[in-house]
């Protein structure tokens, strides 16, 4: 006997219903993030800052290391920001185009922040996941090492290193890479401790999967949410860190520059009334840091619901 058509329809409905696509964690997080206006606006701002750093150089009408000697001593009158002269942001104290220098400074500052965050993500996550997964004595030793490194005043050691081995961007990256992963390792370890007792990890252990593979396949993907959040919050801290060193004149070397170095230069000349020399780099610095903090906060609310 055939079922009547009405019954048939309800069966079809039921099948369709069961096929409704489940929302993944990431889709959920995206909707939550999109609802946070401050975070979305900040993300757009960050995109503009990144575009400015990447392509702003093509709009510059002057080379960033070209010194206009005709401006020497007359900066306050002739070096003002104007579209006519092509110095959109004015000139710096030496008669160089500030627009081109701010483009480059923003680029270097962003790069430092992102490299620091990447080192933290790769080294910190693997280190923390390894320590947390194996536990016991290995965990004790690995975390003591982190404790020891954390109580060293790294700013001073880094400056010592920069002085001894010469100033270079490579050295700066090395120094920033050395410290940026410490916090991340602690966070990743804490999270791993809760994950490693879950059933899916037990199943993997029971079926004889190699520990390294368990860490990479099963632990690390589940750390990703919290890692992304802290990496985003780490970027502005790394930018502040680099700017601090450059502010002292110990970071990036001329003719290269970074936002910290530009702020320092602008601060040195502000008593002559050339306020734009500090205003433009400061503006980009503040906007970038602000935007990263807000995006990080938004991501935390979106990906780490228990922390609200």
């Amino acid at each position, binding site marked *: 006997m055939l079922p009547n058509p009405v019954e048939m329809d309800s069966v079809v409905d039921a099948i369709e219903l069961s096929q409704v696509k489940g929302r993944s964690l990431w889709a959920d997080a995206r909707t939550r993030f999109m609802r946070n206006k401050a975070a979305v606006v900040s993300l757009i701002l960050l995109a503009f800052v990144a575009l400015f750093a990447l392509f702003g150089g093509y709009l510059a009408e002057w080379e960033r290391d070209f010194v206009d000697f005709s401006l020497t001593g007359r900066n306050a009158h002739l070096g003002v920001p104007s579209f006519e002269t092509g110095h959109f942001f004015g000139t710096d104290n030496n008669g160089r185009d500030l627009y081109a220098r701010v483009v480059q400074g923003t680029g270097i500052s962003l790069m430092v922040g992102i490299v620091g965050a990447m080192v933290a993500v790769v080294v910190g996550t693997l280190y923390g996941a390894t320590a947390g997964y194996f536990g016991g004595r290995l965990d004790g030793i690995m975390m003591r090492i982190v404790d020891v490194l954390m109580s060293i005043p790294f700013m001073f*050691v880094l400056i*010592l290193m920069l002085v001894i081995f010469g100033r270079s961007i490579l050295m700066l990256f090395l120094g920033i890479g050395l410290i940026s992963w410490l916090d991340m390792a602690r966070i990743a370890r804490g999270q791993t401790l809760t994950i490693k007792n879950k059933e899916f990890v037990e199943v993997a252990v029971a079926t004889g999967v190699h520990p390294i593979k368990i860490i990479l396949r099963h632990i690390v993907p589940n750390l990703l949410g919290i890692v992304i959040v802290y990496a985003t919050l780490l970027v502005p801290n790394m930018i502040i860190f680099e700017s601090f060193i450059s502010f002292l004149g110990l970071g990036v070397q001329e003719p290269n520059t970074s936002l910290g170095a530009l702020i320092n230069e602008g601060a040195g000349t502000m008593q002559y009334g050339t306020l734009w020399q500090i205003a433009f780099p400061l503006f980009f*610095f503040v906007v970038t840091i602000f935007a990263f903090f807000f995006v990080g906060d938004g991501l935390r609310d979106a990906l780490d619901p228990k922390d609200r």
Partner: protein
Amino acid sequence: MFSFVARRLAVAIPTLLILVVLSFILMYAAPGGPFNSERPLPPEVLANIEAKYGLDQPFWKRIYDYIVGVVLHFDFGPSFKFKDRSVNDIIAQGFPVTLTYGSIAFLVAIVVGVSLGVAAAVKQNSWLDYLAVGISIGAQVLPNFVMAPILLLTFTLWLGWLPGGGWNGGQWEHLVMPVIALSTSYMASIARITRSSMLEVLNTNFIRTAQAKGLSMRRVIWKHAMKPAMLPVLSYLGPAFVGMITGSVVIDSFFSTGGIGTFFVNSAFTRDYSVMMGITILVGSLTILFNLLVDVLYAWIDPKIRY
């Protein structure tokens, strides 16, 4: 308690040794000796001077002597650039200055930050709360090297109220800007941490019980909520302290206060390695000591911590 302190010390002392060895190796690896200059000395003279300072000794002997000197006699050796001063003299000159404005800034950051945070939490979602949150978010993007020029511009160049720098024996006019510049961003963080932990504590059952008993709000806050709410703040004090000391480098070079940071930066430019090492080790030991103090305090306040 005693064994807890002993165990923390067992970690702290090797840390300090690692720091000393690390900075010594860095200095040892530095190209060129301290007496290589533009006009080279006659080799015999150079050999004599190096013998006097023990620079002709093998690596192990030198590092041993240095560690013994630092640990037993608190002697960081002679400066490589100043003829008549040892590293100890330089530290003795600069450190009191740094300590003065540093500790004032530290206290200001804690007092203002905690009061702002508590006020914001108690009056959640009022204008006071929004103001406090606004200030703390704004101040987060104003690290000392941004704050310093802004203050200088406002109070010295525009308003002309405060001197632009100098120390002058620590008169208050010379203290205002360094203290504000140094404390702002830490005050902001402390306010944020205090607010969120206070909110959490205020929503717990024992606070509700205290309120149900009819205690006044002031009494509930001071007597019951303050202690648990201060724990996260306490654990932030360690990093804040390190940040303050590091920040003194900027304060000194900006306001010419003549603290330890001036000497650190100057010696960085003149490659006066022994001064740099001495200051690095001093700061490192202070950091380790302070972290130890915070840990002990934490264990003392929080009964949940087993030691």
